[in-house]
């Protein structure tokens, strides 16, 4: 079966301030099977949105190829556009002065749906995303979660087979985010394929069949979330409390210790590369009368942040 998405050596660069070239995607090769929910994980500036834009034909690649259900995104733009739906996150992309229903009818006209079909689909989708009761309200009065659901309804209006969701739950409260994820799972059951660009590790673990980790445009790993967790989580950690910071200097020098973080109230977290290093740290602490320590694994998010490096706000 034709993959839903296949990219090969995909590269995208931007020219900033005339001479400065930024690589947003670097030789990205990725295959997403049909009916899969694929998570694209990475921090801000990793290249997630760039990939989504290329696949949805908003942006041209600088090099390499990208195909959606066998259609090239550069040479078969029309075919791709009829097959894909793009769902943006955030407040933008909707007409605030129109009602939810009118927004969908507007986009229905652009997707060349006849009046009856557009009205029927708009009503069905509003019902499905839980906005039927607010169908006649202007979007400007909607909460973030309601807007997000309307974004999804808009993306589904022409019944695309592949949906690209760019940070769809960004800014949603946990209840709204969970409802949104349930909706995505329901839609997958109908045979749709999803590419979910997110930096939310928990969301990826809860929703995705496979995930791809990217950083600075390069792929770090593709696999099921458990494999990603193993990739990131071969690392372990040891939590303990000790009032004397002088203890930490020698601890950092132990083989296999990848870092030590200071917590609140004299607590510390030691990151280790493997199980042997963890044993070494526990023994070392025991020798120094630290009798209470907890061994564990960092969350996927912590491990991810450590894997891609801590670069703060820089993108």
């Amino acid at each position, binding site marked *: 079966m034709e993959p839903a998405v296949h990219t090969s050596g995909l590269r995208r660069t*931007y020219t900033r301030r005339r001479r400065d070239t930024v690589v947003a995607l670097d030789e990205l090769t990725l295959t997403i099977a049909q009916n899969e929910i694929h998570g694209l994980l990475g921090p801000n500036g990793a290249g997630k949105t760039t990939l989504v834009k290329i696949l949805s034909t908003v*942006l041209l690649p600088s090099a390499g190829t990208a195909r959606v259900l066998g259609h090239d995104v550069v040479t078969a733009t029309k075919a791709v556009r009829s097959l894909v739906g793009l769902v943006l996150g955030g407040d933008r992309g909707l007409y605030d002065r129109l009602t939810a229903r009118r927004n969908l009818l507007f986009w229905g006209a*652009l*997707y060349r749906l006849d009046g009856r079909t557009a009205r029927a689909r708009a009503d069905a989708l509003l019902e499905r995303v839980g906005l039927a009761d607010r169908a006649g309200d202007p979007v400007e009065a909607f909460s973030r979660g309601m807007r997000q659901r309307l974004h999804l309804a808009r993306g589904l209006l022409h019944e695309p087979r592949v949906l690209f969701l760019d940070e769809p739950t960004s800014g949603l409260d946990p209840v709204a985010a969970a409802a949104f994820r349930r909706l995505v799972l329901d839609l997958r059951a109908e045979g749709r394929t999803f590419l979910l660009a997110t930096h939310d590790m928990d969301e990826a673990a809860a929703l995705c069949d496979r995930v791809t980790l990217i950083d600075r445009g390069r792929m770090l790993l593709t696999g099921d979330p458990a494999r990603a967790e193993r990739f990131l989580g071969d690392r372990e950690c040891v939590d303990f409390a000790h009032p004397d910071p002088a203890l930490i200097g020698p601890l950092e020098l132990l083989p296999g210790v990848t870092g030590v973080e200071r917590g609140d109230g004299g607590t510390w977290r030691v990151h280790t590369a493997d199980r042997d290093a963890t044993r070494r740290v526990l023994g070392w602490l025991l020798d120094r009368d630290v009798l209470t320590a907890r061994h564990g694994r960092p969350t996927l998010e912590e491990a991810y942040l450590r894997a891609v490096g801590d670069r703060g706000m820089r993108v």
Partner: protein
Amino acid sequence: MRPVLRIVRESLILGFAEMSAVYTWRTWTFGWLVRLLCQASFYALLGHYVGDDATMRYVLVGNIVVLACLEATIVVISLAGERRIGTLPLLAITPSGHLPVYLGRGLQWTVTGLTSSLVAWCVLPPLLGVPLPWPRAAYAAPVILLVLASSYGYGCALAGVALRARGVEWLVLNLAYGIVMTFGGVNVPVSVWPAPLRVAVNVLPVVHGLQAVRGILDGAPAGHVLRLLGAEALVGAGWYAVAALSMERLVSAGRRDGSLGHAG
């Protein structure tokens, strides 16, 4: 044809919904429309002050007809709004393509432009004591419609430019209208300009349509008026072609350089 008409219909609904954020029918009528009537009256009275009754009629007719252009070119602002609210990339990837929407996004201003111009045409001349040769003067109405159409094409073409250079929509709108108002034969006949400028203004909307209106009022031969109308239609068609090219280029350049999704 039906899909395009549906897009036009939805665009009009959207346009009037957005307009309702700024105006109610009362504030539009007693605020905006009255302001336009005052503007036309001001120039007409100035014409009377510096000239005579003929000058006053010349200036009044020019300022009434140009109202259609003033409102039609506000499409520049409506289109710039698409970038601000982040719909540009979504519009660009719809199967209909961006062009029908882009060309339809300011249609509400053509409705208000036609209303303003026609109300002014009926109200101001008797109010200011400027006699028009009725019923012949009624033939000005379809000409104003043509001027409106060509001006809208002009606005769409410039909107394509305004959308590329972000944050310049008000500058473009004011320049676009200012150029027509100053050089388009509204207050001063085109014939007074130096020869190169006289040639250049032929590409502006309003110029030929306004001359046609003056010809109708003066009882000019039908052939002469029709030639002027043909010229106005040709100028309008040219601006629509520029608009289509300009918006096509906006999208193709945006897909190349990544500027399509940028906020304004």
